[in-house]
């Protein structure tokens, strides 16, 4: 019996269909009975959350190959199969996704009064797509699935957003992401043309000619750069964050922005190594600009959520710097920030969400001295703020330090600029924190106060535990991903 259970657990067939089932079931329950629908959604996401730790235990860190591989014949005459599997790079994305969805559902527990059923369905479908994206080993599907992730996101922003501007934000979000992926769509037939398959294992061993590599690299870069987002095409992210409901921001900060960096890691770097090496300046320059540019823009914002919304741009650009450093510190260091980044901005967005629920405003000038009325929230937001400016002992530091080490070895100027972002980041994070939390209390604007209640605190706790756990004992990351990363570096013949 137990063996049978283990067998069931040992592959990925669990976490992928589970959210699908969870999203279909509510369709048969009438809209009026919202409570069981929510419960079903929460249970489905929790069960999905319990799956990935099992592959984590059984995960063999000593090999760089994908594990728990399964294939599905899809278009046999075109030699296109569905391959899913996990390796050291994608394991953490799966865990992060399954961790964030139950939180989203419980954030929207009482907030989502209208269209409660649809909210649950949209969240679970999104979870399914995200897990599938992380596990996919096939470039074609890696085009199809990331393009479908924005659809539930669009619905969430458009339906449950707070203001009229949400329509514009949703459009922008959708159009930007699909603009980038047009080029990716061009690249895939080209790959098929040469290799006749989209199996990534075969693709990894294929040698593309240099000219073609550069073309393919640019095509994939255009797609991924929008998703990261890099600087000239970043505007959709703050806009979408501000207009999305709290739960939407949590998931938006947590996952879709990882699609771009994940794509770099999985496709651009291993498949087109020469092109990656030659195009390093094209990544370094916009990333370094973003690291200086976004904190400066942030300092002018007055909307609490927008201030936080810009910070992911700076952080993800640090990750791209690490990735294109093409050494083991840089690439290895760029993975922990991605998962830490799934915790830090969501925690901050939740803090803003708590304030917004109470006072129905997000303008910084109305807040002040909230520590005297709600002592617990500042404690929580202070921890997250520290993590946001990558103070040691929190999860962000674990990645950003190796990234700086890696970048410095490649190009010390870029490392200097990245470190300069550290000062600016501290300045705007602290300023935000100080404006909201300390100083004089403003009774003219705010009347009613209450500290986070039990449900909210229990939502925050996993974030805080995760932040400190990753910051204090980060050994689990290098243990799991070391082989994959060094394989990546060796494959690229970077040394």
């Amino acid at each position, binding site marked *: 019996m137990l063996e049978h259970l283990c067998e069931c657990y040992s592959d990925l067939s669990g976490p992928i269909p589970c959210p699908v089932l969870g999203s279909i079931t509510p369709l048969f329950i009438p809209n009026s009975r919202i409570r069981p629908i929510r419960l079903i959604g929460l249970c489905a996401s929790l069960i999905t959350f319990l799956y990935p730790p099992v592959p984590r235990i059984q995960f063999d860190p000593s090999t760089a190959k994908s594990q728990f591989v399964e294939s599905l014949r899809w278009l046999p005459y075109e030699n296109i199969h569905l391959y899913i599997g996990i390796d050291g790079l994608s394991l953490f994305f799966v865990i992060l996704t399954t961790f964030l969805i139950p939180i989203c559902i419980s954030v929207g527990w009482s907030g989502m009064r209208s269209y409660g059923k649809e909210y649950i369905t949209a969240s679970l479908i999104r979870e399914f797509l995200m897990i599938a994206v992380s596990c996919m080993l096939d470039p074609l599907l890696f085009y199809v699935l990331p393009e479908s992730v924005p659809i539930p996101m669009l619905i969430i922003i458009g339906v449950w957003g707070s203001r009229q501007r949400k329509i514009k934000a949703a459009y922008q979000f959708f159009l930007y992401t699909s603009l980038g992926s047009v080029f990716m769509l061009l690249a895939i037939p080209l790959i098929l043309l*040469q290799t006749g398959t989209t199996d990534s294992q075969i693709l990894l061993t294929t040698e593309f000619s240099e000219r073609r590599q550069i073309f393919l690299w640019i095509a994939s870069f255009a797609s991924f750069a929008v998703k990261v987002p890099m600087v000239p095409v970043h505007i959709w992210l703050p806009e979408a964050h501000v207009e999305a409901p709290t739960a939407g921001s949590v998931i938006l900060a947590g996952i879709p922005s990882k699609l771009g960096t994940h794509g770099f890691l999985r496709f651009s770097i291993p498949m087109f190594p020469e092109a990656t090496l030659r195009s390093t300046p094209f990544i370094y320059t916009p990333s370094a600009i973003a690291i200086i540019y976004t904190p400066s823009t942030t300092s002018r914002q007055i909307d609490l959520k927008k201030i936080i919304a810009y910070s992911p741009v700076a952080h993800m650009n640090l990750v791209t710097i690490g990735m294109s450093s093409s050494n083991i510190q840089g690439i290895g260091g760029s993975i922990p920030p991605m998962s830490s980044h799934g915790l830090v901005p969501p925690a901050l967005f939740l803090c803003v969400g708590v304030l917004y629920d109470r006072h129905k405003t997000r303008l910084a000038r109305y807040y002040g001295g909230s520590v005297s009325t709600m002592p617990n929230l500042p404690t929580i937001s202070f921890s997250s703020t520290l993590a946001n400016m990558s103070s040691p002992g929190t999860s962000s530091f674990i990645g950003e330090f190796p990234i700086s080490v890696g970048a*410095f070895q490649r190009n010390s100027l870029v490392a200097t600029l990245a470190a300069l972002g550290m000062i600016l980041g501290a300045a705007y994070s602290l*300023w935000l924190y100080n404006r909201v939390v300390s100083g004089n209390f403003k009774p003219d604007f705010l009347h009613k106060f209450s500290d986070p209640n039990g449900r909210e605190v229990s939502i925050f706790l996993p974030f805080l535990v995760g932040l400190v756990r990753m910051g204090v004992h980060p050994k689990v990351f290098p243990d799991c991903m070391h082989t994959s990363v060094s394989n990546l570096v060796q494959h690229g013949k970077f040394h």
Partner: protein
Amino acid sequence: MEHTYQYAWIIPFLPLTVTMSIGFGLILIPKATKNIRRIWVFPSIFLLSIAMGFSANLSIQQINGSFIYQYLWSWTIDIDFSLEFGYLIDPLTSIMSILITTVGVMILIYSDNYMSHDQGYLRFFAYMSFSNTSMLGLVTSSNLIQIHIFWELVGMCSYLLIGFWFTRPIAASACQKAFVTNRVGDFGLLLGILGLYWITGSLEFRDLFEIANNLIHNNGVSSLFATLCASLLFVGAVAKSAQFPLHVWLPDAMEGPTPISALIHAATMVAAGIFLVARLIPLFIDIPYIMNFISLLGVITVLLGATFSLAQRDIKRSLAYSTMSQLGYIMLALGIGSYRAALFHLITHAYSKALLFLGSGSIIHSMEPIVGYSPEKSQNMVLMGGLTRYVPITRTTFLLGTLSLCGIPPLACFWSKDEILNDSWLYSPIFAIIPYFTIGLTAFYMFRVYLLTFDGYLRVYFQNHSSTKNNLFYSISLWGKEAPKTFNKNLLLSTMNNKVYFFSKDTYKIIDNDKIRYFSTYFGNKYTSTYPHESDNTMLFPLLVLVLFTLFVGSIGISFDQEVMDFDILSKWLTPSPNLLHPNSNYSVNWYEFFTNSIFSVSIAIFGLFIAYILYGSVYSFFQNLDLINSFVKGSPKRIILDQIKSVIYNWSYNRGYIDIFYTRVLVMGIRRLTELTQFFDRHIIDGITNGVGLTSSLIGEGIRYMGGGRISSYLFLYFFYVSIFLLFFLFIGINPIIIQVFMG
């Protein structure tokens, strides 16, 4: 014996348990935790005392036969890159840890009483213990990455503690300013670490020194790059130890409670920068430029700190600038390579300054019931005076601390300061002039503080004059206390005319006794007590213990036996690093030479002291009747010049050398302008392009709508037009070869 070394890792973790348990208690069972609040002090003091015992044991062992102990365990591992945690026990560590723990225990005892009526009593102790933890962790670090981690934690503690009374906007701005300024230092430190890692491939101190020195000697690395990395590391120390360009946070940091100022802004945290430089001295010593740079900055800081301290009205700010100046002395000593003198002064200064700060805390405590609880009033020396009568014990201890800091012989600071002065004289007479001059300034401003506080009569009635016209109460500015944006010269002059008599008492008349009685009765109605009162025994005990330290700690650096060189305890303590000791350490062999050297510095100090006494002392009232002084002072042309000089110095000092204003105007405004620019770019150009594309596409759609008018002739025309273009393209140009290449591989 080995056991002490094996279990030395426990030292930083001992205070941490208090922080953790108070934190969990406050979150999980707040009521019960708050009910037993005074009891929490015992474990925190007890655990820190254990840490003190540990470090005392380590120090004794280091003195008797010192060796270096190191233990490492890995934190994260890659094949190429490993981060390790470990601890390193060597003389420097033992000195620092005994310093931190002794001062820490005293201040914990003191703050039990000082903070007893504060709402955040428990929070205070949690923060205190955490800052002790991070400081002890810093000094026991064995590699640069660990230094960096604890460095930031120390900065965070300082942020929390400066902003302890966060409901005051000034405190909130001050802590932000401290953190951001320290971040500038961290930026340098991080880059320096990265650069050194790039050069040497190691972060471990001993490997790093070995490899780096080899490389430098064999020209394996360009000296320019090595100097750059070293100076970047030094930037970290500059920010933390409040050296010249980045000192602006220290005086503002006095917004925190006084025990904090005593612990982290006088004795321990600001010593972190000194510690870093001392730790990296084996690296720096091979790069002559950086050593000169360190000593130069040290000299500048010595002078600036002393001059800024001259006209401060806030007792704690005055002491803060004095700290800055004394840290400059230590930096100078490190820069000229006299490692021993630097550490010696670090120890003696820490005890003396902690004593002074605790004394000022006691004064503030006694003033608060009379003048009110705002730091604008209770720390204002203008409102003090004549406290000798009311707080005799505090006064004695404060006097001893003052004398020690001035460098008056039997007290601690004399021995160390004299050593620094001697060494700097031997190093270069040009460098030595400013430190010698500053001795006089130190004596002057310290005695000014002492006299304004304890001498004369209580001047509470100035309260009505002291302006609280600042409008800071509703805004938190980006950069500390907002400096006046429009620098109104007339305003400044007018305030100067009002306030100049705090600087010297030319227009100051003797206070009538009746007057003071009148004012006291007036305030007696308003407040509970009429006169300042001496603090409780719990607060006096640490003061007395620190007095003992101030009296006797100098003896560790004195060689009693003239025959044996390096017989004194400090030299024995530092023996494993003999190459770091200054080569001409035989200066103290001859008592006679020592005496002649010191008589010069002491006479300068006494001169400064005398001037302060003339300007501020109550004895001046006797002199006023003498024609001699009057004619000297009132010679009309001289007097004007004198006044002018005085007002220039006063303005320079009161406005902190205009450095804060400069920073506000240039840096803060510059960054603000940059952010406006980027915001404009973001809003109007990047978003504008998107909107423009949307608008164009809808316009095109509008245009095309007219084209599809339903006329078959126009459709046909377009059709043939495109076909002909396509045919032409194929006929004459052919297919672009590059496109073929891309698609055919």
